[in-house]
């Protein structure tokens, strides 16, 4: 998917550049400076008063469309906004609960209520660790 989205983006960019360059080149033509007939569709204050050929207009619109689609497709995966989906991912996958920096990641935010770091029984933990080491040596 990522390769396709990048290809669409590149294609859109090439078309857009081509359209812009064509418009610039067209404006240098002697015929471009002639007065334009007033538009029949647009009101006068919206009329751009340029006589750009139809193919350049179409190419611009097409390239912008391609870029829109490409940007949407190449966007990163959406993050869950439902509580249960988000929490389920934290339980399920190690990657989702990895701590990246202080306050970012780290899994269940309520784990501390059950682990109770403020009431840490360090003597018990030391004894448990010593027992684990002794069992490992045996």
């Amino acid at each position, binding site marked *: 998917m990522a390769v396709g989205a990048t290809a669409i983006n590149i294609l859109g960019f090439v078309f857009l550049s081509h359209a812009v360059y064509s418009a610039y080149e067209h404006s240098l033509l002697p015929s471009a400076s002639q007065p334009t007939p007033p538009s029949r569709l647009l009101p006068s204050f919206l009329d751009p008063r340029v006589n750009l050929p139809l193919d350049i207009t179409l190419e611009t619109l097409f390239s912008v469309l391609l870029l829109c689609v490409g940007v949407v497709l190449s966007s990163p995966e959406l993050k869950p906004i439902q509580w249960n989906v988000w929490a389920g991912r934290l339980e399920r996958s190690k*990657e989702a609960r990895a701590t990246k920096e*202080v306050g970012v990641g780290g899994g269940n935010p309520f784990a501390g209520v*059950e682990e109770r770091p403020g*009431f840490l029984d360090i003597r018990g933990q030391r004894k448990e660790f010593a027992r684990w080491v002794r069992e490992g040596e045996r």
Partner: protein
Amino acid sequence: MANPLLEAPSKSSPETAIDLSQQASTFITSQSSWLSAIPYPLSLFINTESQEKWQTYENLFLACLRTGDDNTAYACLESLTDRFGKGNDRVVALQGLYKEATAKNESELAEVLREYEEMLKSDPTIFSIRKRRAAVLRSMGKTSDAVTALTNLLDQSPTDAEAWSELGDLYLTQGSYDQAIFSFEEVLLIMPYSWNMQARLGEVLYLASGRTEGGDQMKILSESMRRFCRSLELCDDYLRGHYGLKLVTTRLLEVLSTSKKPQQSSSDPVRGDLAPPSVDAVKKLNELATSKLAEIVRRSNSGEKGWDGYSAAEIIAARELLDRDTQKIER
């Protein structure tokens, strides 16, 4: 990029604790580079501070203390004290922790306790020290003193979920289920979305149901079932919740099948009592929990992507529960 130095080492396995403590000396030497020796006005241009740095110091301190590497732990403690000062609540608690861990006998531990009490006499608002005092009392086996210390603490700070949880755990070790349930309900009042505490209350209720009989037992079991359901509502694929739900619905089905008639009269919606669940609903929940457990065990064992986060021991326990079930059917 995940950083193992930032994971709190409190409940981690001994393997990770020893890994962490082995990284300690390299981390400390990497911090004391020539950059920190630059004199005052120039040092303003260099930032050696970050939250991560001090969190790492604290984690290394705890891991080293656990593995018995007291010298490295003391070095970490010194850096923390230099940075945050002797009067900082957290540093004071860490210093107490160091003294507790290195106390050689009961009398030295009693000395630490006496120091805590001295400190609290001069300033009774240091909650970290009050918590340490309760923890020391508990580890010395003076459970009733620990309960008194905790109830005093909670009288003054009734929204401290950690202290409520500790009190509930303490009551649970004493076998006072009613008080334990009350404490865990207080935790849930403060943190209603904590799915692990919902499951914890469900487990305590399930334990408490073993002591009662008849209508009361049914009421407690259905309450426990509702707690597990709530924890699953808050968290998809919660192994602990599904495990508890399966246990409690199995038990509830036995109770419902032996009881003569459904006790509809005992339900009173005004007082918050709900009617006992129907047999069909319980059966459906039991089937749901069984199928979910089987799915979790299968996907976790096959090493599917994004399913590697369950603890191995929990998966084995779930598998045993499922195996027990199939054996019963075969017989």
